[in-house]
Each structure stands twice: as C-alpha cells, then as structure tokens.
C-alpha cells in the first residue's frame, strides 16, 4: 500500500477531504466576519452566536411550523439577517465614532446574552436535526465513505463564498460599499444612503453566519455552545488571512481546515491548537496576514 508520511494513502486522502469539509464552515464564517470588518471596521464577536441562531431558527421552524430544510436554508438567514440589521440600526451604529474596541465589547456581550438565553431554554446537550432525505446516505469513494450531505456542504459553501466575493468586488452595490468605507462623507454627498449600506452589510454578515448555521445543523448537535466552539478558530482564520481581505478569509478557511484535519491524524492531541500556532507564526512573519495589505 502506498504510504505518505507513514500513513496509508487512503487514510491521507480521507483526511484531506474532511479537512476540506470543515474548511467550508471556516471559510463561510470567516467570510462574513471579514465583510463586516472590512466595511464596518467592527470586530463582530456575535458571529458565533449568529451562526448558532441560524441552526436554532432552522430547528424551530421545523418543530413549530413544519418548514423543511430547504426553505429553512433561505428563511433562517433572512430572519437572522433582519435581527442583525435591527441590532446594527438600534445599537451598533451608535458606536462607530468610538474606538473599535467598543464594538468588540458590545458584540461580545451580545454573544454571551444570546448564548446564555438559549442555554437556559434548551440546555447544553442540544437538539437533534436530521439530514434532509434527499441528501441522506453516502457514496463509497474507495478511500472513504463520503456522506452526501457533507459533499453538499462543500459545494454550496463554495458557491456562497464566490457569490459574496463577486457581489462585493464586481457589482455596483459592492462598489458603493467599498467606496463608503474609504470615504463615507464623500459617498454620502453623491446621494448614496451610507447608513443604510452599513446596515445592509451587517445584515448580510449575520445572514452568512446563519446560513453556515443551517448547513451545520444536520452535522452537529444544534446546541447553544456550537457558536462559541467555532468562533475563536474563525477569528484566527481571519487574522491569518488578513483582516478585511475577503478572498484571504475564504482561502485561509479552506487551508486551515485541511491543516487541522491532517493534525488529527499525525498528532490528534494538538488538533485544537494547531490553528493558533499557525496564527502566531503568521503574525510574527507577516503581521498583516497572508493576504492582507499593510495598514
């Protein structure tokens, strides 16, 4: 049997694929964070909570209204995005003139409140959410058994990442957004409603997190803790990729997912710190991140 670094080729390929699947979640989440930071200069610590909300909204929609996965995939991001927009309009927008640390503290407090509320209501063990019947089962790839649902996660999150990138880099709306970040006063003078743009951006970021949450619901237990488990890793992804760099966040998400997956084979005990070790090394060598421009 062919061996790579002392492990069988088959196991190696399997782990690569798993890294890619986990990387999809990292990419999708860090993308939202990067969009919010890049355009609003807000470090959104509530991102994990919004991801968790997405999963819970999907579950509650199913439980109380019988709305299935496919509709939840659209509805849950809309609901959470709207919630995000309201938060931005009523509270977060008041902090733009202050040091960015205030935004960070506010969103962190918000995350703790949301998670605490859901823990009180639903406990920490979480609730089950089953894989939609159309995507149940798996395919034997020879080197591993690939659950169809996980394959779907990779495809759909890649599509969402590319879509968001195109929206911001290639459309007129995206151009307004980027211009509003560079010089809000000037853009406003041209008759563009800048506060509305910012609200939309935050809503979009929250919706992306919720989208990832719905995707995650059938894979993990829908639990109030699911957001805080992943958010720190996602922050590390954004820092490694370069704050505010959208493409950087996406690529780094996949890269670190794979790095983590491989660590789980070679030295599993280190699998939850490998990303932070990489972060420390990148910060030492390239403080602006792999894809960031020096501020």
């Amino acid at each position, binding site marked *: 049997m062919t061996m790579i670094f002392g492990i*069988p080729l*088959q*196991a190696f390929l*399997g*782990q690569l694929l*798993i*890294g890619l*699947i*986990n990387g999809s979640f990292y990419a999708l989440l860090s993308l939202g964070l990067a969009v919010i930071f890049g355009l609003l200069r807000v*470090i959104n610590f509530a991102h994990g909570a919004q991801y968790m909300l997405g999963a819970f909204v999907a579950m509650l929609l199913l439980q109380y209204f019988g709305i299935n996965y496919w509709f939840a995939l659209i509805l849950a991001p809309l609901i959470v995005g709207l919630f995000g927009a309201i938060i931005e309009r009523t509270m977060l927008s008041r902090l733009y003139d202050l040091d*960015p*640390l205030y935004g*960070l503290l506010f969103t962190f407090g918000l995350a703790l409140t949301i998670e*605490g509320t859901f*823990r009180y209501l639903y*406990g*920490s*063990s*979480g*609730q*089950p959410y*089953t*894989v939609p019947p159309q995507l149940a089962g*798996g395919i034997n790839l020879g080197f*591993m*058994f690939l*659950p169809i*649902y*996980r394959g779907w996660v990779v495809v759909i999150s890649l599509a969402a990442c590319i879509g968001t990138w195109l929206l911001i880099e290639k459309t007129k709306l995206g151009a307004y957004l980027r211009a509003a970040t560079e010089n809000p006063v000037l853009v406003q003078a041209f008759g563009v409603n800048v506060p509305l743009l910012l609200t939309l951006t935050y809503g979009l970021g929250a919706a992306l997190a919720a989208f990832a949450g719905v995707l995650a619901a059938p*894979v*993990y*237990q829908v*639990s109030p*803790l*699911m957001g805080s*488990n*992943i958010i*720190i890793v996602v*922050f*590390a992804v954004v*820092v490694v990729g370069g*704050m505010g760099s959208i493409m950087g966040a996406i690529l780094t998400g996949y890269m670190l997912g794979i790095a983590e*997956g491989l660590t*789980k*084979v070679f030295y*599993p*005990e280190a*699998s*939850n710190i490998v990303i*932070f070790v990489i*972060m*420390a090394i990148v*910060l030492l060598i390239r*403080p*602006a*991140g792999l894809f*960031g421009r020096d*501020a």
Partner: protein
Amino acid sequence: MRKTVLASLALLLASGTAFAQTASGAASDGKVKIGILNDQSGVYADFGGKSSVEAARMAVEDFGGKVLGVPVEIVDADHQNKADIASNIARQWYDTQQVDAIMELTTSSVALAVQSVAKEKKKIDIVTGAATTDLTGKACSPYGFHWAYDTHALAVGTGGALVKQGGDSWFFLTADYAFGYSLEQQTGDYVKSSGGKILGSVRHPLSTSDFSSFLLQAQSSGAKVIGLANAGLDTANAIKQASEFGITQGGQHLAALLFTLAEVHGLGLEAAQGLTLTEGYYWNLDDKSREFAKKFFARTKKMPNMIHTGTYSAVLQYLKAVQKAGTDDTEAVAKALHEMPVDDFFARGGTVGANGRMIHDMYLLQVKKPAESKEPWDYFNVLATIPGKEAYIDPAKSGCDLVK
C-alpha cells in the same frame, strides 16, 4: 496594532477567560453549608449542571431543612471544567464561607483537584459527577467519597455486555484528560481479560465538535467495537456523526461508555436507538424511582439521570451522618459516612468502603427504538442489574493507602 490586539484577545479567549462566579450566601457559624460545584455552562451542563443543585435542594427539603437544630444551606458555583477555577472556589468556600462539604464535582480533573484541597483542609467532599477510580484509588482521602458511578463500573457494565455479544476487538476514541484515560484503560483491561484485543486508540480534545477525522481512523481499524471514552456533548456528536459516515451500518458497534438519560434526550431516540449503556439509576425503574422523578420533573422540566439522583442521595446521606455524629466536625461525620448503610431510592443496600467508594447496584440499559417508547422520556429497557460487588473495585485492591 489592532490586529495584534485582536490576536491576543482571541488567544486569551481560547485559553478560557474566567468569569468566575462568586458563591452566594453569607458566612455564618450556626449553619450546615453544602457547596455544589459543577459545570453549569459547558459540555456537561445537562449531565449535571443546575439540575444537580435543584436535586440537592430537594434533599435538604425532604430532610426537613434543618439538622441538629440549625438550618442547612446549599450554595453553588460553575467551575467551567477548569481545575484551577474549581480549586480557588473550593478554598474560598472552605476557608472563608464556612462550607462544610463540597459535592457533585463533575469532570475528573476537577474532582481530583478539589479532593486534594479538601484532604489538605480536612474537609468532606462527595463526588457524584466525575468518573475516575483514582478518587478512591491512589488519590483517595479519608474525607473523600465517590457516590454515583465510576469508570470501573462503566467498563464492567457496557464493556462487559458488548464483549459477551461477540465484540472482541476494540478501538477507542478517548477524551484527552484524566477521565478518558481512566475509562479507556479500565475498559481495555476488561476486554483483554475476557479474551478480546485492543486495535488502537485516538485522543481528542475536550469539547470537539467534529469527530469525522477520528471516526475515519476508527473505521479503518476494522475493530468490531468503537469505544467512546468521552462524555456529554462530545459523545452525542460522535454518535451522530458515526451514523453519518456509515459506521454503524457497516457493522461496527458503538460503545458509549458514559452516556446518560440527559444525552439520550439531546440526541433523540432516532440516532441513539440500540445503544447499550450503564447508569446507577433509571427513573422508570419502579414506583420509588418514579415518585422522585416526577417531583424532580415538576421543578426542572427534565427527568433526572444518575448524577442528579446521586447528588440527592449524597446530600441526604451527609445530613443523616451529621445527625448521627451529633456534630458537623469532619472526622466524626466522615466516620459516620463510612459506617452507615445507604438505603434510598437511588442506592438500595449500598455500603461505603474504607477507600470512600459507595458500592451499590448498577443497571445495564439499552436505548429503546422510537416505536417502543410509550411516553416522553421513556427511553430505556433494563437489560440487567449489575451487583455492586461486580461493578466496583474491591476496596482492598483499589490501591488506596487507607485500606489495610
């Protein structure tokens, strides 16, 4: 600059920011005070958590609220599964808040740390939530007790049942801390002594959400049984993902070595059906156990598992011991706890060994199919009763130096 601030913040949070909760309750001498210290917000919050505090309060109420003419008070705190936070709270409780005994102590690493504080301060601790047999083995204390279950009982119960069904080759997924090692080792020993073999193991960090990588390694090992030497949300996620990767369909069996009613409820019968597990209590066992469960449900909206009822039993027995000793002095109460038989709806005919281990019968349970479940929380079939003497290590062989 901002990036560095953010990076260090992320690291700080990753390493765990301590929002240490202060213990409620004022210091006073004319009181018997019991501290319930456990995980109230993390992976084990449903396993024990706030519901254990409620169970302790119920025990105090059932006892009459007073012992030796003074009121009994329950205080509680969240140790966040961190041994350092727990030790600090324990010291504070014993030193400045006149807490007489600390109980529950979910998470083995925490229980070991607190028991060593208690031993040093000559104070009582009764562990119900943690599993490692070291608590009544090499780390035993003359004032330390281990109540509901331990890794040996789980190994004999769940491990034994699967070996009997022909599961003679095992691969372990182990939580990377004291509890996981202890559970893996004891189950492994049991499997080997029954003629089985261990094909390998992989250690994962506490609160891992994605097990796919570990599961693939277990799958490719070809072992007949995959032993999950972890607990709480970790086990639930591992089981859910195992069925996703076609592991159970492929003929490999999962052994959830520490799995209770709370986690089965979280996972749902669809995903959990058929699992074999070991608990020291099941609410639907008989009238006595149902009576308590109904009262407990009215207060917490969930049915109790062995951690909750074990905590009730421990608090009740402690108060009986104080009464018998006629004082809350540690030596006298510890002596009474060692001597008195334990007989309540949780432990029937239980005894306490010289090493502090409370020896009582355990139950081998199997999760019902969704169609078999007749009412909410009706989750288990009782396969067998495991006599206390088989389930627990003989105190003389426990490695505890208090046993002569």
